[in-house]
């Protein structure tokens, strides 16, 4: 196995007095699907956002494909283009059509030709099942459709790794599966993924490794099978007991 695609070394972050990330060490290899779970406030979203520097870190280092995450400017923008991000609240560009949402990055960041970008976007929208909505505005789509467009928008940049920050938490229950199916598909195709989620079903089905975070620390990591059937720490046992009992 070569060098890890994403690597965090002794990462620390504070929000005021709150130590949200405490000495985080994590390596994700190419093609691996890592699911991060844990109670709210455990730092899992912050961890996910720190990987493409939407959150700055106080010390430690983050490497993407061997390159240290730059502080600001063009180099950072370039690196972010290699890291796809899917947000809890979709964040589709509200004044642009579905098609424009997907083509904007390839055209403006990668300098792709308009016709080529459109072709790419349509094939991605086809893949996530919303090609017939391409001329609409985001607000005209359901939450599940919007989130699938957001996945297509991230994929259009041909990222090396995809980050998902609670992608189904803002969705109506009946729309969760359509998004999870898209993500499972993506995982099967070999995409490297870091997924912050409360969907234990997804973790069982698609994850190579489950990371359990609590109070800013990685408490436990294991294969999903191991983690769900035989958690080691009391904190994880307590957490699983609360969510799996009913």
């Amino acid at each position, binding site marked *: 196995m070569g060098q890890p695609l994403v690597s965090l070394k002794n990462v620390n972050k504070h929000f005021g007095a709150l130590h949200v990330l405490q000495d985080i060490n994590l390596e994700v290899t190419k093609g691996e699907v890592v699911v991060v779970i844990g109670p709210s406030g455990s730092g899992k979203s912050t961890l996910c956002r720190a990987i493409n520097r939407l959150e700055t870190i106080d010390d430690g280092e983050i490497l993407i494909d061997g390159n240290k995450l730059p502080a600001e400017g063009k180099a950072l923008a370039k690196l972010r283009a290699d890291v796809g991000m899917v947000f809890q609240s979709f964040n589709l*560009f*509200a004044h642009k059509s579905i098609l424009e949402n997907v083509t904007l990055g390839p055209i403006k960041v990668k300098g792709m030709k308009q016709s080529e970008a459109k072709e790419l976007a349509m094939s991605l929208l086809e893949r996530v099942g919303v090609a017939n909505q391409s001329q609409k505005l985001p607000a005209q789509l359901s939450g599940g459709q919007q989130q699938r467009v*957001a996945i297509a928008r991230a994929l259009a940049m041909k990222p090396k790794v995809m980050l998902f920050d609670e992608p189904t938490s803002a969705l109506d229950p009946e729309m969760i599966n359509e998004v999870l199916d898209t993500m499972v598909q993506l995982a099967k195709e070999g995409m490297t993924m870091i997924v912050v989620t409360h969907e234990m079903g997804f973790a069982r089905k698609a994850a190579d490794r489950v990371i359990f975070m609590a109070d800013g620390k990685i408490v436990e990591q294991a294969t999903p099978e191991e983690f769900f059937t035989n958690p080691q720490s009391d904190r994880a046992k307590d957490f699983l007991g609360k969510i799996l009992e009913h």
Partner: protein
Amino acid sequence: MDSLSEYFQSYLTALESYDVVGAFWVNIQLAFWAALGSAVLGTVLALMRISPVPSFRWAGASYVNIFRNTPLTIIMTFCILVLVFQLQLNLSSDFDFNFFLWAVVGLTVYHAAFVCEAIRSGVNTVPLGQAEAARAIGLSFLPAARMIILPQAFRGAIAPLGNTLIALTKNTTVAAAASVPEAAGLMKTMIEFRPDVILAIFATFAAGFVLIVIPIGLLTTWLSTKLAVTR
């Protein structure tokens, strides 16, 4: 009845001997060019105020605080008395046109501060997630601002921008202080020479501005509903 028609006759002769429409046309031209200028300058200032570079933010904030809090009359007389008469900074060799241009400059630097703040209030209507998504696909600050943030911010700022435009239109009367022959200056002259119809003269100029400004208000209200970003 007789005295009423007499009054009306005197009013008509007063109107005929002065170019009221021409004077209002000057105000409209001042408003147009100053609106254009302050829209450009105000957008640049707003970009500075939301930029990630602290010194730009500081410079933008300083500009706004200085020019928003200085009376327009002072800015206008400064342009004419200091920049033109004292320092001989002429924008045109034509005497009258030079004053007109300086009046546009004075109106622009003053109202740009208000345009900047209106746009900034528009930026606050754009959810933070829009900027994060733009950054996440690899756009740096300026492209993200130009393609994602500002287009939505402008739509959210139409009402306050409209208010600024209305204020600007009426503030063109301060150009009288820069010796530009516009409506307020003409009104003063007419009152001086035709005090017999002073009431009608006041009413005429007030009505003139109301007529110019009402469409601006209607247009901005219509635009702000039509262009609203649905989320």
